[in-house]
């Protein structure tokens, strides 16, 4: 068993940060990965209009491990989708890495996601007709990487999540936990600045969910920003910050975990030669 303890400086800096826009000092702005102001999103279903987000302000610092919680149907996933740019907004601004993503054309926004973001979904969303390795390669190939490079990098990532022996298996031949680890490997393969995860443990049993959480924390310890939508209080308890979304508004966002929690989280259960 190998233990890793490399906590990034930014990790420590980010923990416990509750940042109101007007209170962010100039120096700190440089570390803000996600900067959202007055984000409004409305859906129409037939005659019914649903105000999913009603003017959300939010900043997430680089390297932060943020958890978004709240009751079902109150806008958690919508917030994640709007922040990540996979859904449009009605008004407001969202900056990722200083880039106003909703002002970008679809092609540029897509390219931005490919280079700077990773995604993990509740139902894994692996492509069933591709092997695990091919699924992991996908974002790199989309970004224009050479196949050999993509293959090498995917193998490394699969090894990192403990699935080096399962690379040629298709999703149907993997367990739920394994599939989610493949999805995590896929989300990390481009070395993104931020990883968005929507209910990543929703389809997993508690033990597997715990191992996925540990994996997230370990990666986060490497400096990658995580924004996770979840109902799992265990994840909330391990976050740098927990944001509650209620009726399309952020009701509270406060530190959910003491500084030393980072160190605790870096103590990973090691599987299949996984090492950080």
């Amino acid at each position, binding site marked *: 068993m190998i233990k890793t303890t490399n906590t990034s400086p930014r990790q420590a800096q980010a923990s416990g940060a509750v940042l109101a826009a007007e209170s962010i000092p100039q120096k700190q702005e440089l570390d803000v990965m996600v900067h959202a102001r007055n984000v409004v999103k409305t859906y129409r279903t037939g005659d019914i209009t649903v105000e999913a987000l009603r003017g959300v302000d939010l900043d997430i610092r680089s390297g932060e491990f943020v958890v978004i919680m709240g009751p079902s149907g109150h806008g958690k*996933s*919508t917030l994640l*989708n709007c922040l*990540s740019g*996979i*859904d*449009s907004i009605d008004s407001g601004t969202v900056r990722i890495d200083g880039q106003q993503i909703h002002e970008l054309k*679809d*092609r540029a926004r*897509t*390219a*931005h*996601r*490919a*280079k700077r*973001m*990773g*995604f993990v*979904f509740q*139902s894994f*969303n692996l*492509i*069933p*007709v*591709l092997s695990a390795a*091919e699924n992991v390669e*996908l*974002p790199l*190939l*989309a*970004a*224009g990487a050479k*196949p050999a490079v993509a293959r090498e990098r995917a193998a490394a990532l699969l090894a990192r999540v403990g699935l080096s022996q399962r690379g040629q298996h*298709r999703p*149907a031949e993997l367990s739920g936990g394994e599939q989610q680890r493949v999805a995590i490997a*896929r*989300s990390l393969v*481009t070395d993104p600045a931020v990883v968005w995860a*929507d209910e990543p443990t929703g389809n997993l049993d508690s033990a597997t969910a715990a191992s996925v959480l540990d994996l997230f924390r370990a990666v986060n310890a490497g400096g990658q920003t995580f924004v996770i939508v979840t109902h799992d209080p265990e994840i909330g308890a391990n976050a740098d910050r927990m944001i509650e979304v209620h009726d399309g508004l952020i009701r509270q966002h406060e530190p959910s975990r003491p500084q030393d929690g980072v160190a605790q989280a870096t103590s990973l259960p090691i599987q299949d030669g996984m090492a950080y």
Partner: protein
Amino acid sequence: MTIISAGILAILLPFILFDLFRRPSIRRIGIRNVTRRAREAALVVGGSLLATSLITASFVIGDSFDASIRDIAATHWGPTDEVIYLDDPAQSAVLLSQIEATGSPAIDGALTASFIRVAAGSVGEGRLVEPRVRLLELDMADAQVFGKDATATGLDGIEVADLAQDTVVINREIANDLGLDQGDPIDLFANGVAHRFTIAEVVPVHGLAGIGEIIAQPGALTDQLNDATSISNPAVLVSNVGDVFSGAEQTEEVGAVIETAMTTAGVDGEIDEVKQSLLDDAAAEGAETTQLFGTIGGFSVIAGILLVTNLFVMLASERKTELGTMRALGMSRGSIVRGFALEGAIYGSIAAVLGALAGIGVGTAVVAYASSSLSSSGGVTLSPSIQVSSLVSGAVIGFAISQLTVLFTSIKMTNLNIVRALKDLPEPKSVGHRTRNLVIGVVGIVGSVVLWVLFGQTQIGALLAPVLAAIFAIPVLSRVLPSPVATSIGCGAGLGWSAVVFGLLPETMKNPEIAVFLLQGVILVGLGSTIVATLDGVWLKVADMFPIGGVGTKLGMAHPLSRPVRSVMLVAMFALVLFTVTFMGIMNAVFQAQGPEMAQRVGGDYTMIVDSNPTSGYDPAELAAIAGVGLVTPVRLADIEMAHDVLSGEGADAEAEVVDTWEGSLRVSFVDPTFDQVTPPATLIRSESFATDAQAWAAVLNPGADGQIWVMSPDYSDLRVDQTITMFSDSGEPIQTKVAGQTELGWMVGSGIYAPAALEVQLSDQMSDQTSPTSRFYLTAESGADPEAVAAALTANAPERGINARAFSDAAQEELDGQKTFLTMLQGYLGLGLLIGVAGLSVVLVRAVRERRRQIGMMRAIGIPASQVRSMFVVEAVFIGLQGVVLGLGLGTLSSWQILTKSSAFERGLGFTVPALWLAGLAAFGIMVSVLAAIGPALLAGKESPAEALRFSG
């Protein structure tokens, strides 16, 4: 087919109706699944209606042929149901009186008439001449009331009192040909002499004015002739009670009355039941055409079945969780199947109605094309005709096919594991049932052997039994070999057999029915598609070797490869149609390449054939003196009464037995002894008494040398070599002749049996028969002269003499043009089948967009651009289309090569021609339409919003 389909519906409909009215749960599921997504439902209906439309179209085409030929009854016979041709003009009035005296209630009129073959021409500068025109001399006043329906006679508007003896009535067709109109003079040439008349009236081609292009009062021409009996054919026309069509129903009764009348009056003659024969021909032609198009369209219908199967597999797959829930809640599998059946019945019934209506359009388009081609070549005038019964038949067959397809697909798809279905987990690879599969394989192989033993001598049995054995061998081989290898071996063996069976069993597979080609095509394509699907690893390696197009290409290939069953159906759907089009195209090219050889086979080294009007023909010496003409050999034609045994089996079957005796008249070409001064037509098969064709012809032309009168029979008769034919002189004297050999393609010029001129002398009392043109010549062109130009010059030289000169090459080309028109029409019809392939591919891809919506959302979310998503669908379509093109064109070429060069499917080897450019065009077209099929779905996929797609839950 209609009856079988109606039977299937009679079994299924009560269940469907019961569920619809008495089972609310099934009704709710069935109906609400239809209305759940209107666009999806429209796609399923669209896919289903294509097959129905093609089936209906085949009926419409058959109806149109039937109706168009029946139309001739009105235009060319009118009230005339029977014609009695008489030997003696004086007997016309006698027979007429006798028929009228019978007072038969089945007869509503009789009319005496004379048929005279003349040449007709305009008068003056730029004279136009028609060398062969039928003049009908009859009493115009009697004719107008003939059959008690003036309109039907076509002569109802004529003022009989104004008709002078030097006037004629002509029909619109001959008027147009000669550029004449009412009041113009017209010359009628008989015995080489022109007789001038004035046109009193131009009437439509209808009724009696269809029987004769020119109509005159009795004796108008014949009274001016020195020897009218040699060219005038007296007759009595009889009209049965009823209208133009229903009158034919009395034919049998009227025929008996006429025979009695002829016997009583002591009149010799021949009864021709013209109307009944025509209507019988029309019905037979219509049925044959329906069957031909129905069978050829069978390829497209099978493609349609594959499409509907694919659609329902996708539907069931999409609803897998729902199906699991229903099963978990206690709904039986049978109930779910019935829910699907009800849903399918709704789709099917809408598709049946729409498909039948679309079939009218398709059938009408084919008929319009055929009509323009046939009318330009002087054939039947086709016009679209639609019978309600045909629409119903098309709809019923289409509905039955879709309903059965849905039923079987549903039964298969509802066989699911509830837990896996609830969690939407994929089915694991089947590892069970190995013993069961082995048993099925062994039983299947034994069954195939039994099939071979019982039906191996039939074409279907010989083709199918080994193929089935090879397929059933797959589960047996899978015990010792990896499954893909076993599948490839089994399918490869089956494919190999079906590809070479025509060459391996030439006797059994001789003269195959078109259904055998259909079966062979289905087997070849089905097994070929399966083999291609087992090569998924190979395709992926190829894709890895040539990484073009990035993620889109990789995913575009990965999807079809990961779903082999669906892909096989899609590829087969595409390949089936291309297989048939390829087959037809190669046949067309091969036939077209036959032109020069065909001319040689019909005429030997003779290059032209000249027919002259018997009333004003040429003298051979006169013909030979014309520029460009080389050798001239006269031939006299006659229809001779004869009898011969009908033998069992085919060809030179030594064990053939006498199964019947045939009696009747056949066309005979009496040829001079000089006929072999150049090489006569080659034999297809000849008696072993002769070592060469030259010896056989020498025996025919010089009868009696070996105590035999030898003749050459045509290949279309039932006659065999060395068979005896008894020919009868007019006095009834039997003369034994023997078949020295068979010539082929004689039907192109109506040569019939070749017999020596010496035999003509013995049968000479028949030579005045009115149906026998007396002057025919086989010619060669002078060295350096173009036969086609010489023939044209001959015809133009003295058209008033009724000369019709043709180069054999022209006759061959005319025949080939006819074949080309028909094959092109079939290809066009099959091209509509390609629409099924394209629409099917498009429909399946549209459904694939829905099926993969979350996947697309994920791809877009992780940064894969919309262009790559679009290209994924285009690559998928091209990959499938490419496989279909390779299989369809490859197997179509292989199959036609086998049949043309290795089999006895055709009496004479036709050679093999690959229309490379045409095939390349077809391949490019196949790829192009697959790209077109993908454009819509690709755009749809590219527009997906990642967030919405990710939220999608089916």
